[in-house]
């Protein structure tokens, strides 16, 4: 197990190093000079040069890359060009919105998708199945920003149940915070639910046809008992796989959703940072997203081995 963990940590470092190089190079070739963006295109050359010196942009790219990575190892992400505060601090504040949003969306999507997928599979080719599949088709087809706007119109404008956007901060009370995240969570979970429902349904249908399910029934288990004790755990593996993949979708989804609902989260942070050429923020947030995706998929690998004993953790 420790060998396994060490190997996976090494893989993690290699993946993240690769990602950091790609992110850095992409931002190098991205048009738009941060100094010019800050000062405006009419700024005198001397002022631009001064800013470039202040931001360290006068140094060669390789030096800046090494400085960035060395900083990361000391827990430093540098100063935001725009806000003039440490990027770690910015991300830390914004994660208070984005983490609950992302985790909440995954949780809502997983619970709904498992229930709907199992329901559809047990009602295979009956009206309930068609209903769920129709819903899932809609969920895939509807753009999430538009669905978010529909929810705002219904729950905020017409019913006045929930705020239309913004986030008061957790200091204003847990319930107020939760309320302002409800619509964003539902919006973001829509397409995730649609995808996971389909995967759950087909996985359950496939496992239900296996010989060992017939064995379970031959022992005297009812259909329902055979489903819970023998089908579901076997059907979890493809659902886990797609869940791991969807974490990336959730993170990119926060960009759109936080803008629709005016939430001060990491997605909004990176959106604004790209507009302002606040490259120090952009590269760190993107790298953080990459790290989250890699770590989540590592956890998925461990879950595989817990669900299915045939999948041995490779040492």
């Amino acid at each position: 197990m420790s060998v396994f963990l060490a190997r996976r940590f090494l893989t993690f470092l290699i993946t993240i190093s690769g990602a950091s190089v790609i992110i850095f190079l992409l931002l190098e070739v991205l048009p738009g000079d941060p100094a010019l963006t800050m000062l405006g295109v009419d700024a005198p050359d001397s002022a631009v040069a001064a800013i470039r010196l202040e931001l360290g942009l006068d140094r060669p790219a390789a030096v800046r890359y090494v400085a960035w990575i060395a900083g990361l190892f000391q827990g430093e992400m540098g100063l935001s060009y725009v806000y003039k505060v440490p990027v770690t601090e910015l991300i830390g504040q914004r994660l208070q919105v984005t983490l609950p949003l992302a985790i909440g969306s995954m949780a809502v999507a997983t619970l709904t998708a498992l229930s709907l997928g199992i329901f559809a599979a047990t009602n295979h080719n009956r009206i309930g199945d068609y209903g769920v599949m129709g819903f899932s088709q809609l969920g895939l087809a509807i753009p999430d920003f538009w669905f978010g706007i529909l929810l705002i119109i219904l729950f905020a404008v017409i019913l006045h149940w929930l705020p239309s956007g913004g986030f008061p901060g957790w200091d204003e009370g847990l319930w107020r915070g939760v309320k302002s995240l409800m619509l964003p969570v539902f919006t973001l979970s829509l397409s995730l639910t649609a995808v996971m429902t389909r995967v759950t349904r087909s996985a359950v249908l496939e496992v239900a046809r296996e010989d060992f399910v017939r064995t379970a029934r031959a022992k005297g288990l009812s259909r329902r008992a055979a489903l819970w004790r023998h089908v579901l755990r076997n059907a979890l593996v493809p659902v886990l796989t797609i869940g791991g993949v969807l974490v990336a979708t959730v993170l990119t989804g926060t960009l759109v959703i936080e803008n629709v609902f005016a939430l001060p989260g990491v997605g909004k942070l990176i959106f604004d940072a790209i507009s302002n050429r606040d490259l120090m923020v952009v590269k760190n947030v993107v790298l953080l997203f990459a790290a989250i995706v890699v770590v989540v998929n590592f956890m998925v690998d461990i879950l595989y081995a817990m669900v299915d004993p045939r999948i041995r953790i490779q040492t």
Partner: protein
Amino acid sequence: MALLSVSDLTVELQTSRGMAPAVRGVTFDLEKGGTLGVVGESGCGKSVTALAIMGLLPDGARTTGRIELDGADLLALDEEARCRIRGNRIAMIFQEPMTSLNPVHRIGRQIAEPLRLHRGLRGANARDEVLRLLERVGLPDPARRIDAYPHQMSGGQRQRVMIAMALSCAPDILLADEPTTALDVTIQGQILDLINELVDDTGMGLILISHDLGVIGETTENVAVMYGGTVVEHGATDRLFANFAHPYSQGLFAAIPQVGAARTGPLRTIPGTVPELADLPSACSFADRCARATEICWRQAPRMERIGPDQRTACHHHGETAA
């Protein structure tokens, strides 16, 4: 009264071309402690007959006729009542030991499941009973293997686990559907010996399904030969093997390669292939492959007739010698 009495059993299955008859008017009895072999080619309806007895036919299947256990018609029972019989009074083992066990549960837990369900055994009591069963089916080192996963065992060992599971509630009837087909020849013999031994010891009835007339001949007292969803010949094993009357049974018998016999020509086969369910001829289902078929075989289905003590067959031409 027979322990199990199947009469005029008909099963229609849903296919892409509509409902197709898989079993047509099958009738047989199994006495307490009796053994019956059901033999026939793939698709002759023998597995469907077994699944109908278990009540585990695929969705959309239509069953008519009677399946009586101790005089009570199983087809009239609701699903809950049938669950109480499955794995308890009638147990079944399947052809594919590789896929018939759940890969994510330890075998001890899988064997304990019917014990908990039908006999209320839990915890250490259930575990002790599982150990006893594993020992009984000859699994080496049961104390260690009880916590193994199916993928850690060989095919023969897994079939022993399946047998232990089937035996767990001391059933009155064991349905064994091609229990040795997927196994190596040496293991086949061991598993058949084990089944025979258990049948002798426990006094349970056995219905052994096989495509292999040789396996049936060595194992069961009675034989039913099935073709095209019907029983075409039925009787005591020694009588039938002395003198098969139906041309299909004769063909099956002739197709058994004789070890040690001089090979004078190619292996004997029955010409033609098993018809698709939906294409079964309406009169004698074997007519299109039968050398003796005459006009009546195409016009009228032959009835089961008694042709001697402990032997019945369904053939218009059973009295004639083989062509």
